[in-house]
């Protein structure tokens, strides 16, 4: 990642160990990481502290990842256009189509290797070489 203020990533996943796994990779790559356990918590956090990238699970309680992205993309606010990387165990073509329709920029099937996560994070944050 380029020098200067670290880019901020919000990891949205209900699985604590997955959040920790993504945080571990992203922080080692120089990102500042915050976490949310579901889409509702993510929306609340984004209104207070916008980020540069979202890493979003699909199946979560209270608000799933696709609903979260749809609600976010409808907002007339700068946060509506934050790039989003969806990571999920749902690997079917209908899931990929749903992710695109919801506003995901990339879609990765779990388990996501840490180096793959950081490459895509770099692409979406404009840090790629």
């Amino acid at each position, binding site marked *: 990642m380029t020098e200067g203020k670290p880019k901020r990533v919000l990891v949205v996943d*209900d*699985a*604590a*160990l*997955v959040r*920790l*796994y993504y945080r*571990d990779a992203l922080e080692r790559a120089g990102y500042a990481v915050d976490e949310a356990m579901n889409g509702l918590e993510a*929306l609340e956090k984004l*209104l207070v502290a916008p980020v540069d990238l979202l890493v979003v699970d*699909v*199946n*979560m*309680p*209270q*608000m*799933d*990842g*696709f*609903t979260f992205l749809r*609600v976010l993309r409808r*907002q007339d*606010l700068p946060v509506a256009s934050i790039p989003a990387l969806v990571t999920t*165990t*749902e690997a079917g073509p*209908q*899931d990929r189509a*749903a992710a695109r329709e919801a506003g995901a920029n990339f879609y990765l099937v*779990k*388990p*996501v*290797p*840490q180096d793959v996560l950081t490459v895509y994070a770099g692409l979406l944050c404009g840090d790629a070489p």
Partner: protein
Amino acid sequence: MPLIRKPSPAAPDAVPARDPLAALRDGSPDERFAAARAAGGLPGGVPALAGALSREADPRVREAILTSLSRAGTPEAVAAILPHVHADDANLRAGTLDALRVVPGGLGPHLPGLLADPDPDVRLLACDLARGLPAGEAVALLVPILDADAEANVCAAAVEVLAEIAGPDALPALEACARRFPGDPFLPFAVRIAAGRIGARTPAPDE
């Protein structure tokens, strides 16, 4: 600037003027919403809600149907909710799981079946539902998943729950599970963290 939810044009709790079970079938979205809330306590309400859940497309009405079914909590109501863990719609899957988490009396009798479902996504979600069981029961259901489930993502979901509730007896199964999937990038990390958490809350033998 706050997130804005459009207000409903009608009061959501308004009692439908017509028979709720009929309104549930062919009313307007607001009528169906109110009917869904009322139907759980009516004779024939649970089968009507079950049928409505299968055809309902409005997320707000679906949520009301799921809430009424989970409050009813009868075996018939739970049986109506369960198939929707297979839904293609992520919003319906999430609502289904939220409803199953709060079924009075719990999901204990249904979990072994869900954990053995042919669909790995259902098994994965069932691991998360096991959190609602007493710790001993959940560990007894989830350790065999570590031993035998063919899908690494399902095992990872079991590890996630066991990290919070298991004792040191589960450590060999956790470590063996990580060895079963040598190419998986996440499981060794998850098992290492889980083992650390289990160790941290296990008193030393002479304490």
